[in-house]
């Protein structure tokens, strides 16, 4: 955003310290606008007054302009499933954070037979991967027009729209695109793509149907020219596709174009290219080789640009060896580095345990905790789970770093009064904390059992080791 200091924001606020926003002072609210945890719309008095008073309205508009993200934010789709892309502020995540995770769209095409189409759509919408307490899911569909027939394309687009996910409409022919838009423009699909050849027709479509549009050109002068032309004609929702070349010098060139675009937009303050960037890992399917080679390379291209500035992607493979690493990487890169990923320390009762059930211990690093917790819960294991405050570090690192120690384990056991809840004195520690076995026994007087290295194996481990002989 253009403003860097809360003071600059403060001048636009009511300065009444009314606390309606939940912060004690307008200055504190201003600081949160700067770190983007709130927006000017969260100042209710400002919004209310703006409705009545044109002067205040102007002020609000100015503030919105000043606090707009460096990279334009574009919304694709409507309602709960809508995907927000772009809106980024920085080139490196440690400088603030990255905000809107890369949108993952999976291709279908209009010459697929109906059954195959349904199967593919079902797989995309039902995809789930448990991670850090939540299920990761996929964002939407890219519907390609391979028939060249506006009627057929419209039909298939309508069908895909019924799945309720955001869509990218992929058709370079304006007639086909128009047919699809007549059907689903109100779903706010992203249209793909305006090129040097068809831009006039696509500009007309973008204006007429008020949908976001992708501009596609390998030559960055042309790409910028397209962006300026569209912006001047009144199109705000623009996505830039500098053309993903999947191999060799081509891929090297793509890497360079993507970085130059984003760096020039943010560090070079070139507003004309400050738009979300489209990457098409699906282009990996143009290379020679078997399906595994192609899908591996698709994952490679996607990952490269999840790390480096890809805001929205079109994928082919929905196989786990492509989806799982990329969706996990996306989560990792877009995790806010300002907030440590940790959970509340303490004691958790899993599956209504009795005093005879085992006591486990793990750390409060969110990933570790949720992994262990979900393994116990979904494995139907009854037990008591102690959660040690390691400052959000995992087992291995905290044992090495001294955040996971026998004396801290003892403290936690006393605080949670676990001794009163069970009628045995056995503590199961993580396999990765094995070296603390003796120390914890000495410190607590409990018998310490070393559990498996991975909590996914607790179930099998218990069968052999519980109750202890």
């Amino acid at each position: 955003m253009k403003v860097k200091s809360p003071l600059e924001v403060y001048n636009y606020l009511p300065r009444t310290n009314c606390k309606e926003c939940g912060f004690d002072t307008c200055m504190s609210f201003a600081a949160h606008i700067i770190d983007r945890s709130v927006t000017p719309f969260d100042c209710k008095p400002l919004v209310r007054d703006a409705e009545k008073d044109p002067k205040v309205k102007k002020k609000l508009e100015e503030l919105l302009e000043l606090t707009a993200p460096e990279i334009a934010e574009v919304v694709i789709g409507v309602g709960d499933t809508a995907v927000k892309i772009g809106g980024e502020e920085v080139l490196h995540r440690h400088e603030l954070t990255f905000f809107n995770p890369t949108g993952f769209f999976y291709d279908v095409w209009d010459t697929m037979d109906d059954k195959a189409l349904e199967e593919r759509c079902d797989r995309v919408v039902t995809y789930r991967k448990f991670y850090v307490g939540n299920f990761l899911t996929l964002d939407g569909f890219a519907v390609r027009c391979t028939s060249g027939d506006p009627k057929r394309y419209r039909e298939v687009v309508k069908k895909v729209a019924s799945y309720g996910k955001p869509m990218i409409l992929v058709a370079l022919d304006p007639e086909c695109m128009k047919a699809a838009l007549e059907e689903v423009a109100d779903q706010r699909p992203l249209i793909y793509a305006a090129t040097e050849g068809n831009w006039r027709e696509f500009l007309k479509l973008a204006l007429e149907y008020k949908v976001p549009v992708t501009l596609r050109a390998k030559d960055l002068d042309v790409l910028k020219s397209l962006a300026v032309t569209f912006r001047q004609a009144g199109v705000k929702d623009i996505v830039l596709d500098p053309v993903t070349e999947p191999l060799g010098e081509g891929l090297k060139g793509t890497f360079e174009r993507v970085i130059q675009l984003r760096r020039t937009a943010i560090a070079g303050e070139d507003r004309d290219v400050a738009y979300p960037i489209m990457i098409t890992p699906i282009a990996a399917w143009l290379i020679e080789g078997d399906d595994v080679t192609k899908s591996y390379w698709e994952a490679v291209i996607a990952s490269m640009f999840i790390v480096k500035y890809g805001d929205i992607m079109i994928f082919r493979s929905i196989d786990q060896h492509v989806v799982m690493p990329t969706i996990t990487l996306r989560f990792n890169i877009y995790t806010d580095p300002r907030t440590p990923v940790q959970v509340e320390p303490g004691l958790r009762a899993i599956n209504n345990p009795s005093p005879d059930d085992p006591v486990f211990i793990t750390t409060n690093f969110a990933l570790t905790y949720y992994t262990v917790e979900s393994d116990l819960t979904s494995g139907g294991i009854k037990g008591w789970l102690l959660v040690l405050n390691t400052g959000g570090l995992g087992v291995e690192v905290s044992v090495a770093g001294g955040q996971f120690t026998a004396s801290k384990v003892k403290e936690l056991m006393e605080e949670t009064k676990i001794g009163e809840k069970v009628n045995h004195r056995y503590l199961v520690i993580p396999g990765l904390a094995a070296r603390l076995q003796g120390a914890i026994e000495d410190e607590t007087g409990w018998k310490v059992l070393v559990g498996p290295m991975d909590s996914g194996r607790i179930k099998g481990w218990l069968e052999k080791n519980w109750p202890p002989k």
Partner: protein
Amino acid sequence: MKKFTLEEFLDLLKKYNVEEIEGVKIEGDLEIELEGSSIDLSAIAPLYSLLSEFGNFLYHANMALGYLQRLSAALGIPTPFAMQPQPAAPAPSLPAIPEVEELKLPTELVKAKFEPYREEYPGRIEEVVLGATRADGGSREYTITLGGEKSLAFYTFDAPQPHLPAIAIDVFDRKPMLAKAVRVHYDDVLDNPAEWARKCVKKFGADLVTLHLISTDPLLDNTPASEAVKVLEDVLQAVKCPIIVGGSGNKEKDPEVLEKAAEVAEGERIMLASATLDMDWERIANAAKKHGHVVLSWTQMDINNQKTLNRYLLKRVEMPRNSIVMDPTTAALGYGLDYAFTNMERIRISGLKGDTDLNFPISSGTTNAWGAREAWMVDSPIEEDTPWGPRELRGPIWEIITGLTLSLAGVDLFMMMHPVAVAVLKEVFNTLGGKVSGGVADPGEWIFMEV
């Protein structure tokens, strides 16, 4: 008589995307009749007020009006808006209605020139040579140089990158715990570290070999240092690539083991892995210095600790600047990779910006990726998960993506295990390093492909 209903008109507006106007209410089944000149103007008046509400949307309203005009013209009737309506109802102040135009589209692209932003850093990453050839008193057939960057990884448009990242494959002096997908590639050599090393180089294309002397761990075989380093001698005989030697991670034993390794590898310029803050780093670094080796400075994901340890090595041991490599710790994809990535990226940027405590090449223990359950487990332990698919395919890609991500943060040396992961990452480095020519003929073909 042509009846033009309000419904039709609103549809028309909708077509031009002005349906989202709020606060405009029209009641009743208003019907506009267009019939010759006898137009009931009072019927049009609400329409007019409707249009005047639009204010900001005048542009679209104009398009709608234009449409209405063309429609009436086509029907051969005078256009109602050409006349001055005199509404009976509360007279809204009518905005001036500009000339009706076609949707105005530019006919030419607005020519713009893209001027890429240039970034130049004052600093430079140190160059560290691993291995020594006969000319330099060793017996290696080649050396590997790490570092030398003046820009972020693969940003060759900022500055040339003199050396692409190198890949070392791990070898152990006793059978380690390995994921099945990895183990199958080494089953025949697990009991013979020299053969193992040979396989890594000859068959899997390793640039270097890392020999981990884990049998020295007092909790395992507690092999004496002097005996353990015999395996190092075997490996130095078996392969002619530069060598990295690691201990068992035991704080008490490692300094002794690495010191011994430094002695027997005199002249070969190996890398000792590693010196850490919580063990006798001084003894390890001194051994490296005395025998002309390189030391790996290993810290636990903390840029400040990395700086501290590097300073100790530089100031207290007086390690030459060309003999330090850093390992800021690698966490697997999904298991803290974000911390590892950002920590390394910050270290690299600090080095490029001129922090001479941090401008050393970076090493990554990428094999750690195999600790992720997604890499080795048969299927998800979570019932609601979409099935995970064959683990033979998941494992290598987990190692690849972990390594690829860290390569973008600036890693110069990867310690890896799965041969497919090694091959794919090499291809990635060569590609981003500009060493792979060609590409596909038409990168836009996917748009139309019927598969």
